[in-house]
């Protein structure tokens, strides 16, 4: 207990040193303009690891995590923000939606109960004309030897999409396969939460 208290006080001291003494005062409006930005940007608040301070559930501190986290912090620059490709007439009555499917196999494209197209090697494209803003078109593509594929075309613009169908044996390489398999596993194989005693 005494050891824990001592550890806590060291931690508290560390916290006090690593934090700015007072929160930065809000900058005046013009000061936040990029052109006149303050020379010293406010230091980012850096949370410290306190895993050891919580014995019941304490995970081990990972010293590398903050670095990784910092690396992952994305920045929205003007370069990242790209305006959407302009349409010739964004107020046209109808829009054209184009679907291209690979590989070259016989495939059936449906939209709900409606059949949209039968594709075959040599003609793997289909085009749909829809009233602008009439809601998205959720398509299902079925082909023998391949898993059913669900995709969406947006009718609030001219839209096009290329779809690559996946064979059944490719499923383990797809995101979600493990979790889906776990969900469908027999109950005995599932990890069940431990019952409270």
């Amino acid at each position: 207990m005494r050891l824990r208290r001592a550890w806590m006080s060291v931690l508290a001291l560390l916290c006090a040193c690593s934090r700015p003494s007072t929160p930065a005062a809000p900058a005046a409006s013009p000061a936040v303009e990029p052109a006149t930005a303050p020379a010293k940007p406010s230091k980012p608040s850096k949370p410290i690891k306190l895993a050891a301070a919580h014995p019941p559930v304490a995970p081990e501190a990972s010293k590398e995590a903050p670095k990784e986290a910092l690396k992952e912090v994305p920045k929205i620059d003007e370069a990242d923000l790209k305006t959407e490709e302009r349409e010739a007439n964004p107020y046209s009555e109808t829009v054209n939606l184009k679907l291209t499917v690979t590989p070259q196999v016989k495939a059936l494209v449906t939209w709900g109960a409606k059949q949209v197209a039968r594709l075959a090697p040599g003609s793997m494209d289909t085009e749909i004309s829809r009233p602008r803003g009439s809601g998205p078109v959720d398509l299902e593509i079925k082909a023998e030897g391949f898993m059913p594929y669900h995709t969406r075309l947006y009718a609030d613009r001219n839209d096009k999409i290329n779809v690559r169908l996946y064979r059944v044996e490719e499923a383990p390489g797809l995101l979600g396969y493990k979790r889906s398999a776990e969900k469908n596993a027999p109950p005995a194989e599932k990890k069940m939460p431990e019952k409270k005693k």
Partner: protein
Amino acid sequence: MGCAVSCHGKPATLSNPAAPAEPAPGSTAPAIAVVPAVPIPAPQPPKPDDDALPEVTDKLAPERRAIQVVAGIERVVDADVARDKGLTLVDLSDGFAPFIFQDGKAPDGAPLPNRYRAVFVGLANDRTDGDGEPLPPGERNYLELYGVPPSLSVMRKRFVEDGARTCESTVDAAKLLAVDSIETWGKTTEKKEAAKHHFRGMRLESAQKKLNASTLDELASKDPRYAREVKDHLRTEAERVAFAEVEKRLLCEGLLDAGKHKDGTYDGAMRSAALEFQQKNAVFAQADLTRATLEAMARPILQNDFMALRRVLAERAAHAGRIIEDGSAIESMPLPKRNKPRQQPTYKNKAGENVPVPDLVGQATDAVMARLGLATPEDALAFFRRHPESDFRSLRVAVRFPALPEYYGPHMDLVAEIDRGDIWYDFPFNDKGERLAQARERFPGFTLFVRWRGEKVPLASWRTTIGGWRTEVAADGEEYYRYKDSDVGARVWRHIVAAPVWLPPTSSPVGAMVKTKYVAGAYPRVVNYDETGPGYLSAYGLVAGIHEQLRRRGDQLAYFDNGIRTHGSFDYLSLRGRFSHGCHRLYNNIAVRLFSFVLGHRKAKVMGPMALGFRRTFYWDGEVYDMRLPTRGFYFQLEPPLPIETLKGKIKGKLTQPITDYVPKPGVKYGDGKPPAAASGVDSKAGGGQ
């Protein structure tokens, strides 16, 4: 009570009309409350009526027409003349959408379409669903609590239909209000509870006979051992009686399908009818028969419709006047000592006097109601009866709005502040896996200020959310607890995004990314775009302001986005004390109003729809799904950015800094390995309404 409490759990005044009615938490209302017949008085226009414009006799083009009610008679007036006289034209048309959903223009004059506008208008008019697809016949969107108020045509239909109902007198309001709430259960528990009640009744009856007590109360006084059982029994009896009145009211209002409902049971039909009632009347509950729900049911139907109309007009007035002060600013003032009332926020006028910050939204709404001659529900019914639906294609009303305070201008020195309130970093379970109480007295609050004559003047203040302990799926596929912190310190809003899109992290449960949906005559499984948006159900709501921080990178300064946003939220109940993943949520309608106001009073560039080109292919149950998000949303850039400061709040408990790692969930058996390192990324800060 419903109308007496604002959407922020704060005492409401009539001056905060846009706030949906909300139940008081832990209501201890008296058994029988008197429900006021007409709780909202609409003031009459001043006399003599200087703002009355001459009636137009010529045929005016629709864009030149507006209406006014003068001395009880409606007339058409010239909108141009109204503008010249300094009147505000309030848009009553069905095509209305808030400012943030207006189309823009590129510097070269090319149109920048704001695509969500069409969906918003379709939703408000009960024409389409959230995807923009036609609603099935007879279906309604009750989306006011989700930030999409009904259009005037929808209100018209509601008034006309409800005005024709004759069944209302069959509902006994006193029986509804005789209970604080009605307890409801799922099917199995409901049966058990009914049996329990039945046998308790038999037991008490036999005890009554034994002790020769004529009533249950007498039994309780003769033998106190029965007191508790008698109390429970009588409460359940009263709830059953009230339940029958609820059924009658929902049937009368056309919300309950009698064919699908079994009398006396809280079945699926009843649950969905109760939820529709609550959403129609902006009652903050999710199908539970709360006190606020019962109070709303005890009010005449047209009275509820009239309150809804006032809320709709409040939104229109706030957007027409580009005003934000709704009487909530008082919540930002320090808590008073010794039962003294809270101090009113003030600003300094030219003469250096302190003038109270007005409730402009409330005053403007009063002015609109008065100019339309809407003092009672009957006035509103008459208004809608004389206006066919076609009138609402272009209807406007010419109103004198309250004078704007001196601090108003084309570029206001606005600043925003988020007070995190009471913070607990401690893990909320003990080593036995029992949840620990972590009481908060001060909840997080958002306040918008204007800097004026050396002071920070609060304009509006609302409840918001901050991060806390949340469940997250780690890289090993296991669920852990993780503290999702809200950044503290000075940031800026540089970009405001209308209809923003949220990208689910790869750690999101895959099953939740698939749903069954009606599509062109079938019910296939499709990708679930509800949470990603764009849409009112998006994790970022209808609009978001991105928190960015200037950081040094080499010799340069760059903006960093750590994933924190102030954004709207469909999860209206989360604003009442739950936690976010780090973001600051506001009710969708408040967020839309806030950011429309900011854009109306700051220099801003319309950037338009920003490309995203996001695609994620995933597997679920033997099929492949392709999630496609072509757009980030419709961007505005504030020039200069607007400062926003997040205050640290008051740290409670032992820990003074958050734990940044994953923490195993108590009672869950994990593999032998340690939890993986917690990932960080923009999209892990938002997420769902959980």
